[in-house]
């Protein structure tokens, strides 16, 4: 059981602030580090992994700083985002090398176990250079967990994986968390985080925008005001009916149809259908206008 703790951590490069005053504790279980590209996720992860010093604040693993301390890698496994690998090595050689560098008593056995965990046993004697992105990712994971670390840090681990590989990797991370390990992965895809993690840390523009239970954050996200574009058989009648309804905060009519500002997502989507039926209006198109992750994030930041 290990805890990673960040206290008032900031990291800047010249005048650019990459991480701004973030405090968080990452404990056992799966934690998702969610944020758009460029939010500071990798910077945070590199600081946790001891590959970057914080400009201010402290990053500690079980109370000890991570920076300039190679000993932490006895407890940490890191899966970096960069795809580069020793292309001339087979996956088995790669993982055995990692096991030997960790001075494990039986490197061959440990490597075989790690390769089996990521389901690479059959392809283990092929060179990494000939691997697909997803397979290479799994080889990296095998190398990171060959020494059975208590903390596993993964930077965008699902990039380049097909849906089946993604599902398998998710299962794997869940199993590791169930065994009491601290698993942290970064992602810019909401659904990945939703499927996998109990706890979410949302980072936007270097700041911690939201933190805690995923369902709680999901509720915040869905309860926020939404804009819908709607086309119907009678736009004016629908506009009048919507304005009279509880969950609508504004309606505009233009050539494209209606632009409706909903006060809360859940209430509005439930009310819309029954409202249309009551007034005998046919709904031709209902499009949420601002569903992009960025708009969700910017809402969380403004909150």
């Amino acid at each position, binding site marked *: 059981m290990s805890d990673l703790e960040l206290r008032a951590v900031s990291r800047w490069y010249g005048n650019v602030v990459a991480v701004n005053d973030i405090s968080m504790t990452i404990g056992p279980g799966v934690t998702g580090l969610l944020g758009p590209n460029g939010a500071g996720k990798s*910077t945070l992860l590199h600081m946790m992994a001891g*590959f970057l010093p914080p400009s201010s604040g402290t990053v500690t693993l079980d109370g000890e700083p991570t920076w*300039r301390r*190679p000993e*932490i890698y006895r407890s940490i*496994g890191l899966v970096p985002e960069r795809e580069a690998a*020793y292309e001339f090595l087979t996956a088995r050689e790669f993982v055995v*090398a990692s096991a030997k560098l960790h001075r494990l008593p039986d490197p061959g056995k440990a490597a075989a176990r790690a390769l089996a965990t990521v389901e690479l046993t059959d392809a283990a004697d092929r060179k990494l250079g000939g691997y697909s992105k997803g397979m290479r990712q799994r080889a990296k994971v095998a190398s*990171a967990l060959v020494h059975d670390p208590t903390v596993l840090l993964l930077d965008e681990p699902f990039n380049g994986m097909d849906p089946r590989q993604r599902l398998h990797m998710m299962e794997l991370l869940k199993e590791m968390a169930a065994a009491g390990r601290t698993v942290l992965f*970064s992602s810019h895809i909401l659904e990945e985080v939703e499927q996998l993690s109990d706890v979410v840390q949302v980072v936007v523009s270097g700041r911690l925008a939201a933190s805690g239970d995923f369902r709680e954050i999901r509720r915040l996200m869905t309860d926020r005001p939404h804009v819908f574009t709607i086309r119907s058989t009678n736009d004016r009648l629908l506009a009048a009916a919507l304005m009279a309804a509880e969950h609508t905060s504004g309606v505009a009519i233009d050539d494209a149809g209606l632009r409706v500002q909903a006060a809360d997502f859940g209430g509005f989507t439930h009310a819309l259908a029954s409202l249309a039926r009551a007034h005998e209006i046919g709904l031709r198109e209902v499009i949420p206008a601002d569903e992009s992750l960025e708009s969700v994030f910017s809402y969380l930041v403004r909150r």
Partner: protein
Amino acid sequence: MNAVIANITLRALFGRRRVLLLALLPLILLGLAAAFRAGGGDDTDILLGRFGIAALLPLVALIVGTGVLGAELDDGTAVYLLATPTPRHVIIATKSVVAAAVTILFAAVPELLAGLIAFPDRGKLVAGYAIGAAAGSVVYVAIFVALSVATRRAMAVGLIYVLVWEGLLASFVSGIGVLSVQQYTLSFVRAIASAGDEVPATVSVVTAIPLAVIVVALAGWQATDRLRGYRISGEAG
């Protein structure tokens, strides 16, 4: 020394295209040696000193010394080595030993062969050049490994150092000789071969040995310290 690191380093080094350049340089020296023999040339300093020690040795050491660790730091594969509890001085020592061995293979051994081809009756002098070049390899490599951890432009900085500092200043400004690896190397050659002015060295071997040891120790310490604080950068996100 760490066998795993040494193995991966060698395989990475010989898997890169740079190795062709590495093979080309000694071939030029051997070609020149053959020409010397055919033409009856007897100036050992031009072939073994000015080409072998002043040009071939630092260039081979530069390619190898910046390649053993710098290339891995550049392409990001070094992370797999650094994300292990392996003490950083072990990594630097292993990389440096491998680099020195390869440099000896591609610079000192060709120096010996070239000497034997061109000057078959000057065995002692030729041996002096070869052993001197081997000792020089160790010092150059220590500097270039440290340089590759300190900057991403190690190749360019190293080339400027070889051409300007070692090539121009140290050869023509006598006071700088005490800070020149080329001059240390020549002083080793001179001492081993018990040669006189035939081997033009501006520092005495008594001065050169402790200075070379200090340079290697400082470079090793500096490289280890830098590697301990190695930062992953370049990725926004």
